């Protein structure tokens, strides 16, 4: 191989990289390889905390994301919902993002409706929806949900909703989980909710957002589902304990196939670039 070929390895046209990635991901989507994960150190505490709650204890899930980050965060919301409904824990959905109402609607439509047809809105789950305010909303909810939400998204007053019978403010929840794609989101829940209140707080976040939340773990955050892998780990925990009551392959586990292939393609290109650099440099030194 001539020196120019090694140099070429260092400057592959980005269109070839795009093409390789597209082909690899499409192939993985068609073949649907399943890579089983196992629950990791950051996810186990969340699963265990929900597992430890007595039936009937309310759980709050804050859907702080939009459709762009739904592929990473929606599987977390789905897995948490499955776990809560199996354990008989009424779920409250709210959102710090305007898109949150629809994200809650998708969970109802794609998970609760088909998999738990006996679940009743208002009894097994309730959607409070979006309210503006971010951190100020979280602060206001500490003492009273009613201070910012007069009714759920159907217009039913909170006092008439059985799922909220035990709830006045955030401290009445067995656990609060924020699934966050940015601001406002998990950080606001930590600073204005979990740190001030007396409820366990856990989170889920996108891959790019994960590094900023590690300083809060484990003292301010009970656990963290980081990216699609975090969701897949939660699904693995569900599969371990409730194999008969949840789908065998869920959304995140299915998504890990294309993600694995994409990571391998990126790693391959990084290694190619470095091989070109390394061999090219050695040849240059040899010529001298």
């Amino acid at each position, binding site marked *: 191989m001539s020196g120019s070929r090694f140099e070429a390895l260092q400057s592959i046209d980005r269109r070839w990289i795009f093409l390789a990635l597209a082909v690899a991901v499409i192939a993985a989507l068609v073949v649907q390889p399943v890579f089983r994960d196992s629950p990791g150190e950051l996810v186990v505490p969340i699963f265990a905390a929900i597992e430890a709650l007595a039936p009937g204890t309310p759980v709050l899930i804050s859907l702080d994301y939009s459709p762009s980050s739904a592929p990473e965060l929606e599987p977390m919301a789905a897995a948490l919902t499955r776990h809560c409904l199996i354990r008989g824990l009424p779920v409250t959905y709210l959102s710090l993002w305007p*898109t949150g109402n629809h994200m809650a609607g998708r969970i109802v439509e794609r998970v609760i409706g088909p998999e738990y047809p006996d679940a009743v809105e208002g009894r097994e789950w309730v959607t409070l929806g979006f309210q503006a305010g971010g951190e100020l909303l979280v602060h206001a909810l500490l003492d009273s949900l009613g201070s910012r939400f007069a009714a759920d998204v159907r217009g039913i007053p909170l006092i008439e909703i059985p799922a909220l019978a035990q709830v006045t403010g955030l401290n009445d929840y067995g656990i609060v989980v924020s699934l966050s794609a940015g601001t406002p989101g998990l950080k606001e829940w930590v600073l204005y909710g979990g740190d001030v209140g007396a409820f366990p707080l856990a989170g889920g976040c996108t891959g790019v957002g994960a590094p*900023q939340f590690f300083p809060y773990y484990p003292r301010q955050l009970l656990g963290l589902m980081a990216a699609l892998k975090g969701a897949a780990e939660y699904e693995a925990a569900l599969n371990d304990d409730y194999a008969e009551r949840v789908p065998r392959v869920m959304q995140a586990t299915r998504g890990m196939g294309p993600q694995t292939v994409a*990571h391998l393609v990126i790693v391959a290109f*990084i290694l190619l670039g470095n091989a070109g*650099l390394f061999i090219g440099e050695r040849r240059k030194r040899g010529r001298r």
Partner: protein
Amino acid sequence: MKRPTPQILLTGVALILVVAAFMAPPGDGSSGGFAGAVTYADRHFSSWFGILAVFAFLLGGASLLRTHGRRVRERKADWHYSAVTLVSFLAVLIVGFLKLGGPPGLTGDPTDASSWLTTIFDSVLSPLHATLYSLLAFYVASASYRAFRARSLETSVLLGAALIVLLGRIPVGVTLFRFDSLSLWLLKVPNTAGQRALMIGVALGVVALAVRMVLGLERGRGGDGS
């Protein structure tokens, strides 16, 4: 008068909220006196934000209409994009306000599955968001290929960390190389140290800025036009 009034408001509210954050006693603020006032402020100021947000939305909507309306009227550069913005904004606003297709009335849920708003959300907004976000994967791949080169000690460390995290986050990497623990250690220890340094630095900056604003030294916010 134009400048002192907002400054007095800002200073007063900021001081009350700072005091409340550190020493608001329990209760609903009905006890009266200074403690009662502080508790009342702590409990209710955040709720008032909801009311302000409504006006902020109206202001934002009006500003959007004015800015993009002018661009379209005057045929400024790329006015077509402004036209798309205006049409989309008005269409979604009307569909949402009138609750077309969904349960009508004040309490009707605009996000009901039968509403046009949900159709727009599912058929237009969601695919657009997903498309834009998924393009990131291609740019990340290209940028990683170009950036992660072992040209020096520092870039070699960066390359090593990137490979460990990339492989530690996929089942194949965990099975073949056992990179999961190392990847987690990188995130929990060196990353946390760097993040904390940043957070503390930013927090100190925010405190300094807040003090300047409370003291009226940050003129840009006082309404003097500077």
